């Protein structure tokens, strides 16, 4: 009986070949149409915001892991993904220091203090957005009108750098830039003054136009405005089986079903569901934010509960809270409930009753 030199290993001996890096890369690719669209619509400032945010995420991740004496993990792309996601939640003229603060906060407080990738409770990008929103409310809600690249209104590269680097959106020649409110904001402010939805948003929602909204040609944060492109990316992730349908579908349902009910009940005070779908960050949130694997439930049943909760909270916040938009708050709040959801949605073990 001769021994040969085969290695001893235990099963399984093969692997489907996927890796965390692949997963992260797939999500980044899926965000590319939306990102490209954001740059198209808002011009160079958008590109600067995205680059600065992503870079500060990467640098923070690298430095912090070094401090913790761990091998640098920026190669796993998760920090880059966080950076891009965060950038998409920022306003198009976000000043550089806000991008940096957000990036550092996302990685440091949102992720590394919990122990790094896989251990964080909250979606790092969203927790950073919430941080920025609370810290710098003025800058976070300065919505310039859309200025498509290469169009008349667009800023030159130099102007764009000036905007992002000085944060002075209101430089004399650019003064008229700081004006428009997002449709959601307009709806909240005006209905708060006792107007009906129609009055608030212009006759037949005139000021807000569904086609333009779907194409992204209305003001808002980078990712909010590119919803239709975001949905493409989401579809790509679904097809690639990086995410499953459970969270996006249930999140949309959780927001749109109550929207439909209230709108049917009183169309004068509650806007119709397409308004909710096409404004704000619902779509990008449902496909990219809530589906973050680390901070969402692990079973499909749990994911549906989670999605419904995110959607419902979004609707509640948009309609009754002090903030016009609630996707990030909703997702972050639901993140906190994930361990509980996981606990109660374990699959039934084969052969065991309940």
């Amino acid at each position, binding site marked *: 009986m001769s021994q040969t030199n085969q290695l001893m290993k235990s099963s399984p001996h093969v692997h489907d070949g996927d890796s965390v890096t692949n997963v992260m890369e797939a999500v980044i690719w899926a965000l590319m149409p939306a990102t490209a669209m954001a740059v198209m619509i808002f011009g160079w400032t958008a590109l600067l915001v995205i680059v600065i945010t992503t870079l500060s995420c990467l640098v923070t991740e690298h430095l912090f892991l070094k401090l913790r004496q761990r091998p640098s993990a920026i190669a796993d792309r998760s920090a880059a993904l966080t950076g891009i996601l965060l950038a998409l939640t920022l306003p198009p003229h976000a000043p550089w220091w806000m991008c940096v603060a957000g990036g550092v906060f996302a990685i440091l407080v949102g992720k590394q203090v919990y122990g790094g990738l896989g251990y964080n409770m909250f979606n790092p990008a969203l927790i950073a957005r919430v941080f920025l929103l*609370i810290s*710098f409310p003025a800058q976070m809600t300065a919505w310039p009108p859309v200025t498509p690249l290469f169009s008349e209104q667009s800023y030159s590269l130099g102007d764009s750098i000036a905007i992002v680097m000085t944060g002075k959106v209101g430089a004399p020649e650019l003064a008229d830039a700081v004006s428009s409110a997002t449709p959601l904001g307009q709806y909240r402010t005006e209905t708060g003054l006792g107007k009906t939805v129609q009055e608030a948003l212009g006759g037949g929602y005139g000021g807000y136009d569904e086609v333009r909204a779907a194409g992204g040609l209305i003001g808002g944060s980078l990712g909010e405005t590119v919803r239709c492109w975001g949905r493409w990316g989401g579809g790509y992730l679904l097809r690639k089986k990086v995410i499953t349908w459970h969270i996006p579908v249930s999140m949309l349902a959780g927001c749109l079903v109550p929207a439909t009910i209230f709108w049917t009940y009183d169309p004068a005070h509650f806007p119709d569901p397409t308004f909710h779908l096409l404004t704000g960050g619902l779509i990008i949130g449902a496909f990219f934010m809530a589906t973050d694997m680390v901070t969402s439930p692990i079973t499909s049943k749990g994911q549906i509960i989670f999605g419904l909760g995110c959607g419902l909270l979004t609707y509640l916040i948009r309609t009754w809270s002090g903030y016009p938009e609630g996707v990030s708050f909703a997702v972050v709040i639901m993140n906190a409930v994930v361990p509980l959801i996981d606990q109660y949605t374990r699959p039934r073990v084969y052969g065991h009753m309940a």
Partner: protein
Amino acid sequence: MSDNKTSQLITDGLWYNNGIFVQMLGMCPTLAVTTSAENGLGMGLATTFVLLGANVVVSLIRNFIPSAVRIPGYIIVIAAFVTIVDLSMNAYLHDLHKVLGIFIPLIVVNCIILGRAEAFASKNGVFASAIDGIFTGLGFTLALVVLGSVRELLGSGSLFGQALLGSDFHPSLVFVLPPGAFIALGFILVGVRWINAKRDNEAA
């Protein structure tokens, strides 16, 4: 009572057994009032005064008070000192008193004070208790001032009311709001542990 023991009481109170950094006691005032360095200092000194008084009195009566009712007894002693502080601050430091508000009366239930009374003053002599009270209180003050400074610096760009960071700095509101207190305290604790670990390493 040896010098050795006294110096140990001092370093323990200020650092090694710091009420905030190590024991994590008295979190309510710590997190709630430290929106500025000044508030932290005021709160810290008020607490120090109460600690000193309570420790001395508790130590004096420690042999007379039946153990079954000792906690209510301590509370009454502490409450008396808190009332003194409350009224005198209202009289002489009215603005600060307005800012600290309800947290002054709430010193009564600060666990550090009750903790020192129960764990130290009720078992030790008057002098040691006084030293313990003063330095535990100063340790508490130190923690509050550090936390208050960090929050004020990041949240308002100033320190003890003096604008420091210029107009290009954009204060981050979150640090003067409750979440900022938790985040800042967390990082301060990291810093404290880090310093301690480093020294322990060197000692070893």
